[in-house]
C-alpha cells in the first residue's frame, strides 16, 4: 500500500465520513461543518471538488452513494435528527461551465426524534430503498417506488431495537438465496448487559422485519457493523467494531429443521477476534470482494485483515500517521510523488555493496521487506534468447477483436429529426 495522492478537503470542521461511489470515480465527504462535498476524478487522475453545500443543521455523520442504476444519488444523516436524499441535476447552467455540479434535496426524512446515526442504501436488487438508524433505537426502512421521482419516499418499516442504534448494514447477498437482512449495532453504554448486535430478517408472509438473531457475546458498545459481499457462499460473514474487531460467520440452519414461517435461525461462529487496536474500534469495512476487512481504532491506525488460503485471519497491513503535523495548507497534489517512486524505503536502502550480489534490506528496516532493494548489479550483456518466442510487446492481448459484435452492439445514433405528420 502506498499513498498515491492527498487532497486538501477544505472542510471547516471534522470530517466524519468519506465515501467512494460505486466505480471509485467520485467521492463524497461530510463534516461537522454541516456540509457535504462531492469530488470528481478527472481523466488525468486529479480530484476536483465539484459541489459543496450545506446539507443539515447539525454535524453530518454519514454520507453514502446509491447504486448508479438509480442515477447520481446521495443520502446523508445528521445530528439534526434527519436524513436526506440528494440528486445531482444535469443542466446547461453556468455551473457546468465552471466544472460545478448541482445537487438538489429530494427529500428530508424526519421520522426520527433523535440524532440519525447511520444511513445505508439497500442492495440494488431490492429497488431504491434505504435504511436509517437513530439514537432513539429505531431502524427505519424507506422506499422510493418511482426511481424517476425521488421526492416520494415512503416509510415502509420501523424496527424497534430497544437500544440506541449506532450502525446498520444490509446483507448484500442476493434475494433469491436469502431474504433481505439488516444487522444493527448499538453503542448504548448504559450498564445493562444486553447484547449490542442484532440481526433482522424480512419475512415474506408477514411482510415485516423480525429479529432473527442476537449476537449474545457482543456486550460492549458496537460502533460499526458490516456484512461481507457474498462470494457465492452459503453462509454470511459479519464484521463488528466494538472494543475489538470481530468476524462472525452466520450459517443458516435449514428451514425444514426450524418451524416454518419463522425467521431463519443461524449457527453463529466467531472466526476471528483481534484487539490490536488496543482500545475501541470505530469502523469496519470490507473491500469489494469481501476478502479484506479494514478496521479503524483508537490507536489511530487502519488495519487490514485477510484470511489466507487456509482460512487463517491475519493482519496484513497497517496504515498509520507518521506523526508529523501538517504544515501550512497543502495544495492538492503537492505531496504526490511521481508514479513508481512511491516506495520511500527503497530510496534509503541503498547499500554500496559489491556488484553481483542481491541484497535484501535488513528485516528491521521500515518494512522494505516488501521489496527487494539492493544495489543493482552490473547488468549482463543482452542474454542469448532463451527460446524463439518473441518478447515483442504483445498489445494484441489487450484487445478482444470481435468486429462483428462491435458493430452489432453499437447503440444507434440519433438521426436528424424528420417532420412529423
Amino acid at each position, binding site marked *: 500500500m502506498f499513498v498515491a495522492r492527498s487532497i486538501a478537503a477544505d472542510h471547516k470542521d471534522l470530517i466524519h465520513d468519506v465515501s467512494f461511489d460505486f466505480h471509485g470515480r467520485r467521492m463524497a465527504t461530510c463534516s461537522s461543518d454541516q456540509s457535504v462535498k462531492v469530488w470528481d476524478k478527472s481523466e488525468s487522475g486529479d480530484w476536483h471538488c465539484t459541489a459543496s453545500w450545506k446539507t443539515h443543521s447539525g454535524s453530518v455523520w454519514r454520507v453514502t452513494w446509491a447504486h448508479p442504476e438509480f442515477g447520481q444519488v446521495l443520502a446523508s444523516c445528521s445530528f439534526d435528527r434527519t436524513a436526506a436524499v440528494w440528486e445531482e441535476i444535469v443542466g446547461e447552467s453556468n455551473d457546468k461551465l465552471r466544472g460545478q455540479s448541482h445537487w438538489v434535496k429530494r427529500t428530508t426524512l424526519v421520522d426520527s426524534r433523535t440524532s440519525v446515526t447511520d444511513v445505508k442504501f439497500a442492495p440494488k436488487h431490492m429497488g431504491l430503498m434505504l435504511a436509517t438508524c437513530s439514537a432513539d433505537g429505531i431502524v427505519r426502512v424507506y422506499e422510493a417506488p418511482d426511481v424517476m421521482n425521488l421526492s416520494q419516499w415512503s416509510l415502509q418499516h420501523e424496527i424497534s431495537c430497544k437500544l440506541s442504534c449506532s450502525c446498520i448494514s444490509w446483507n448484500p447477498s442476493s434475494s433469491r438465496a436469502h431474504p433481505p437482512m439488516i444487522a444493527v449495532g448499538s453503542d448504548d453504554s448504559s450498564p445493562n448487559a444486553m447484547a449490542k448486535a442484532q440481526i433482522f430478517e424480512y419475512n415474506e408472509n408477514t411482510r415485516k422485519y423480525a429479529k432473527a438473531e442476537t449476537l449474545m457475546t457482543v456486550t460492549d458498545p458496537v460502533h460499526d457493523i458490516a456484512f461481507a459481499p457474498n462470494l457465492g457462499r452459503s453462509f454470511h460473514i459479519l464484521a463488528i467494531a466494538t472494543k475489538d474487531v470481530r468476524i462472525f460467520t452466520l450459517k443458516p440452519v435449514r428451514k425444514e429443521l426450524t418451524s416454518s414461517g419463522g425467521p431463519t435461525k443461524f449457527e453463529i461462529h466467531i472466526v476471528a477476534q483481534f484487539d490490536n487496536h488496543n482500545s475501541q474500534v470505530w469502523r469496519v469495512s470490507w473491500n469489494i470482494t469481501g476478502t479484506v476487512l479494514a478496521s479503524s481504532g483508537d490507536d489511530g491506525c487502519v488495519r487490514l485483515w485477510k484470511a489466507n488460503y487456509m482460512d487463517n485471519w491475519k493482519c496484513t497491513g497497517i496504515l498509520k500517521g507518521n506523526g508529523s503535523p501538517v504544515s501550512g495548507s497543502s495544495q492538492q497534489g503537492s505531496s504526490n510523488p511521481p508514479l513508481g517512486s512511491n516506495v520511500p524505503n527503497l530510496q534509503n536502502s541503498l547499500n554500496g555493496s559489491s556488484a553481483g550480489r542481491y541484497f535484501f534490506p535488513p528485516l528491521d528496516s521500515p518494512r522494505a521487506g516488501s521489496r527487494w532493494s539492493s544495489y543493482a548489479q552490473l547488468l549482463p550483456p543482452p542474454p542469448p534468447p532463451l527460446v524463439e518466442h518473441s518478447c515483442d510487446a504483445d498489445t494484441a492481448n489487450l484487445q478482444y477483436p470481435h468486429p462483428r459484435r462491435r458493430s452489432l452492439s453499437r447503440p*444507434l445514433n440519433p438521426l436528424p429529426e424528420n417532420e412529423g405528420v
Partner: protein
Amino acid sequence: MEELDGEPTVTLIPGMNSQKKQMCFDWGPGEMLVCETSFNKKEKSEVVPGCLLIYIVRKDVDVYSQILRKLFNESHGIFVGLQRIEEELTGKSRKAQLVRVSKNYRSVIRACMEEMHQVAIAAKDPASGRQFSSQVSILSAMELIWNLCEILFIEVAPAGPLLLHLLDWVRLHVCEVDSLSADVLGSENPSKHESFWNLVTVLVLQGRLDEARQMLSREADASPTSAGMCRILGDLMRTMPVLSPGNTQTLTELELKWQHWHEECERHLQDGTFASSPHLESLCKIMLGDEAALLEQKKLLSNWYHFLVTRLLYSHPTVKPMDLYFYAQSSLDLFLGGESSPEPLDNILMAAFEFDIHQVIKECSIALSNWWFVAHLTDLLDHCKLLQSHNLYFGSNMREFLLLEYASGLFAHHSLWQLGVDYFDYCPELGRVSLELHIERIPLSTEQKALKVLRVCEQRQMTEQVRSICKILAMKAVRNNRLGSALSWSIRAKDAAFATLVSDRFLRDYCERGCFSDLDLIDNLGPAMMLSDRLTFLGKYREFHRLYGEKRFVDAASLLLSLMTSQIAPRSFWMTLLTDALPLLEQKQVIFSAEQTYELMRCLEDLTSGKPVCGEPDPQRLQDDDVETTKVEMLRLALARNLARSIIKEGSLEGS
C-alpha cells in the same frame, strides 16, 4: 504480500497524527480513501483543524509501472497458453513443453530487466535512477530464483546433467566476467593487465576452461619462464572429463575418468610443478576443489551459490539432486563464515535446494512486493503436478489464492484489468464470482469502454452484470436527455419498465414538439419492440407516420385504427390518434371504409362518454377544455362526412 506469514506492511500517512486522531476510511474498487477524524462524536470539536487532507491509498505500486506493464502483458499470453496445454500430453513431450513455458516466462523477465536497466541509466535524477536500479535487482532476483526452480522442479535434471544446468545458471547470473574479459582482451598487452589473473580465475571458477586455456597461452607467449607450467595446467584443463550432452558414456565411466584426472592434478600439486607461480598453483588448487583456495576467491565468487556450484564442479561433479541441500547448506555456512546472516534471497534459494516448494513460494510471497512472481510460478508448478505430489492438501487452493490476488491487483488499473479477466477465468472456485464483483466496478467513462466491459460479460453469460451495466448507461442517458441512447440501452438491458418510461418520454416529446427524435432507432426496433407495450406502441405509431409520409394512406389508416381497437395505444393518447385521423378523413378520396369509420366513431364516443377507466385521465377534463371540445366537434363532423362518402362509394361499387 505477507499474507502467508511475516509481519504486516506498515504504510505511513504523511502529516497524520495517529497519537491524537483516528482515521475514517472507505474502500473503492482499486483504491482506499483515508482521512483524519475523531470518532468520539461531539456536536462541536474543540479544535478546528487547520487543514484536513484526504488521502488516496493504492495497493500495488507495480501495477502502475510503465515497464512492468510489459511484463504483465506478455506473461499474460504465456499464462493463457499454459492453461491450454493439453492434459493428454505426458512424459517427455509434456515436460519439454513446460520447460519451454518456463523459459518464456524467464525471457520476459529478462527483457523487462534490460529495459528497466536502460531507463535506470538514462534517469535524470539520482533518486529515480536508484528506484529503477532497485527494480532491476528485484527482477534479476526473480529470474535467478525462477531459473533455479526450473532446473530443480521442472527440468528435474538427474545427477550429471544437474551440475551442467547449475553451471549455466551461475554463468547467467554472475556475469561481470564478460565485461572483464572484454576489458582485458581489449588492452594492448592482456597478460600484463592488472585484472588478467582475476579473469583467468573467474573463468576457472565458472568452469569455462577452454577460455581459461586460451588466456594461459597468452601468458605463456608473453613470459617464456612460465611457459612450461602454463602448458601443463592447460593440458589438465583440456583433459578434465566432462559430461557432454551427445556423449553416451555412463556416469560410472565418467566418475572413473574424473577420479583419474583428479589424482593427476593432485600429483602435480604434490610435486610442486607450479610452486614458482602462486597464480598457477592457486588455479590448480581450485581445480582440485580445495575449499580454502576457493574461499580465498570470495570476492570473485561474489556469492555462496557460485561457491557451491564451483565446489561441486571440482569435487562432486556427479552430485545427486537429493544431496544438493547438504552441500548448499555447508556452502552457505562456509561462505558467510558467521560474519553475516542469511538474507531472504538466501533463504529462498536454500528452500529450493531443499526441494521445499511450499517454502519457496511462501518466502517469495513475503519478500516480493507484487503478486506477479508467485502467482505465475505457482501456477506453472501446479501444471507440473508438483503441488499435489508434495502432499500440500491445499495445493490448488494456493494456486487460485495467488492468482486471485494478482488478478485483483490488475483490476485496480484502468486498462490492465482486461488481462485480469483471463486469470479469473482460470480460477475454478472463486474466479467467476470475483470477476463479477470486479467487472461491474469498471468505470464506464466512455461508450467504447462500456462496450468492452459488456463484451467480456456477454461472452461469459453474466446476465446480471450485463443488465446492470446497460441499466446504468440507460439511466445516465435519460438524465442527460439522450432519449435514443437511453432507449437502446434499456432494450439491451431487457428492462421493460425503463423502456416504457423512455417510450413515454418519446411520446411526450412528440406531443410537445410534433416530431420524433431518433427516427433511425425507432424505425429499426424489430423484435425488440415487444419488450414493453408502450415501446410496441411507439414503434407502431412511428410506422403509421412513415406510411403516411409515403402516402400509403389506406395502410396508414388501418394501422391507426388497429392501434386503438387492439388497445395497444394508451387511452391518454387516443385523442392524439384521432386527431391524426383528421387529415385522412379530409382527403379527396375515401380512405376509411364505412366499417372503419364506425369503429373510429366508437373510439371517439368511448373517450368522450365519460366511461370511467381506472388510471386514465379524467374524461371530465376533456369536456372542460374548450379546445378539446372544438376538436371533438371537428372530428364528429369529419367522421360523419366520411361516413356519408364511404357509404356512397361502397354502394356504387357494389352496384356497378
